[in-house]
């Protein structure tokens, strides 16, 4: 119990370290540049406290449950087991972690609101919900595919920059075809996905796999996984926008 509390405290300090620079910059701008009082200061402070507590609980919870299980599974699948199950696991891991990614949930909801305000979407709660879910599922599918490609890449020894070059050629070809109002969101979704929950679990699979195969370097081979996972969402979201 004591260890748990100590870990909790460390998590709290980590979250605080994430939040402090941002709060400091905003406060400095408000006081020195804008010279205006913040409206609803109490509400904002309360919200910041919720963000701080939320991050601490979320990360601590992941460390207690999902991270150890996910990492041991990733190592086990990487070390032995059939290729089919490895690929199914890779897809499921990419998909599941992306659905639970906090930043993506928040940005997808916000995007749906903007789409309604701009008249791209019917102003109904159900339409808003469907749009946000559709966006998140598209991104989750694309990350699942990225992890599968990443696994195949490590197994077959494809160089990462070849895949990246092909990927960006794909992005360049799709950009003029996609509707203009989806392009910004599509480009952003790559960076939004690779965050708190996806990065540790997906990287664990990559590093585990690279260290279990002879002739692979865990550092250079294991890490390219994240680069792929921030590339495929761009294409998938543009396709989603073009089909919608």
């Amino acid at each position, binding site marked *: 119990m004591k260890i748990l509390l100590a870990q909790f405290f460390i998590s709290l300090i980590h979250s605080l370290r994430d939040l402090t*620079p941002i709060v400091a910059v905003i406060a400095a701008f408000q006081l020195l540049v804008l010279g205006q009082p913040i409206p609803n200061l109490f509400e904002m402070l309360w919200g910041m406290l919720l963000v701080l507590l939320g991050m601490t609980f*979320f990360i601590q919870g992941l460390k207690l449950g999902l991270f150890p299980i996910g990492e041991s599974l990733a190592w086990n699948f990487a070390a032995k087991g059939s290729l089919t199950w490895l690929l199914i696991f890779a897809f499921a891991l990419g998909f599941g972690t992306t659905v639970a990614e906090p930043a993506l949930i928040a940005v997808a909801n916000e995007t749906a609101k903007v789409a309604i305000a701009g008249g791209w979407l019917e102003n109904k709660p159900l339409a808003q919900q469907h749009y946000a879910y559709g966006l998140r599922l598209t991104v989750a599918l694309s990350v699942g595919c990225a992890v599968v490609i990443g696994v195949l890449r490590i197994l077959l020894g494809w160089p990462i920059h070849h895949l990246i070059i092909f990927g960006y050629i794909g992005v360049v070809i799709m950009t003029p075809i996609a509707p203009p109002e989806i392009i910004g969101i599509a480009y952003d979704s790559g960076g939004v996905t690779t965050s708190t929950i996806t990065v540790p679990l997906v990287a664990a699979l990559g590093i585990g796999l690279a260290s279990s195969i002879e002739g692979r370097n865990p550092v250079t081979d294991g890490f390219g996984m994240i680069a792929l996972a921030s590339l495929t969402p761009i294409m998938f979201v543009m396709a989603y926008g073009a089909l919608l």
Partner: protein
Amino acid sequence: MTAYYLSLWSTLLSTLTDVLPITFILLVFQAFVLRRRIANLTKVILGFVLVVLGLTFFLEGLERALFPIGKLMAQQLTTPEFLGLASADAERTWRDYGWVYVFAFTIGFASSIAEPSVMAVAIKASEVSGGTIQPDGLRVAIALGAAIGIALGAFRIVAGIPVQHFIIPGYVLVLIQTWLAPRNIVALAYDSGGVTTSTVTVPLVTALGLGLSSHIPGRNPMVDGFGAIALTCLFPIMTVLGYAQIGQWRTRRATQSGDETDTS
């Protein structure tokens, strides 16, 4: 107050459905494919409860603080009074929005210089490079990249330039740099783009972009509001590859001059 609890409750319910898939996937694979029992079940359940509560609080806090403050900053930094314009309809160019770029740059630098995952990447990269790359120098390179990325993202919203006009040339440059940079740094450089955009920075930058595009005349949030995150992922790749190239070049020059003194 009831409305407050109601919104918290509905966030809690939707969070539950967000976290269930990954939990289900991991447990099913553990039980049926690897056929292992879950050690420490109480700890795992406690962890699940914490994850759901944490995500709920985080999303509620975003709605109450980070999203509103990002939009508020965007609004305050673009009012005609703050810009020093005579009237609301006065002619304005991208040059009038200097403070917007300064704010974007500062947020980008401050949020990534102390980011734990940036530090982790920096330490790993210095190990891989065998000492030609200093962890602190690399951190500054990543943070500068993130700062330039957000500032450029703000500039393109103000100026109304499509995001692909920056992204596509950017990636062409990255490809050229990839070809020239030391092999072992490439994968880490690509990753350094993803790690700078933390869970706190992403919503704030999104809110800033949406706020700017809805307060600047002639901009449309849906078309112009996004894209800053994408640029924030791109520029650290460039600065890290550039930093590695400079490091390599310096080492090569040092050994060359060393050789010359040996032979002479």
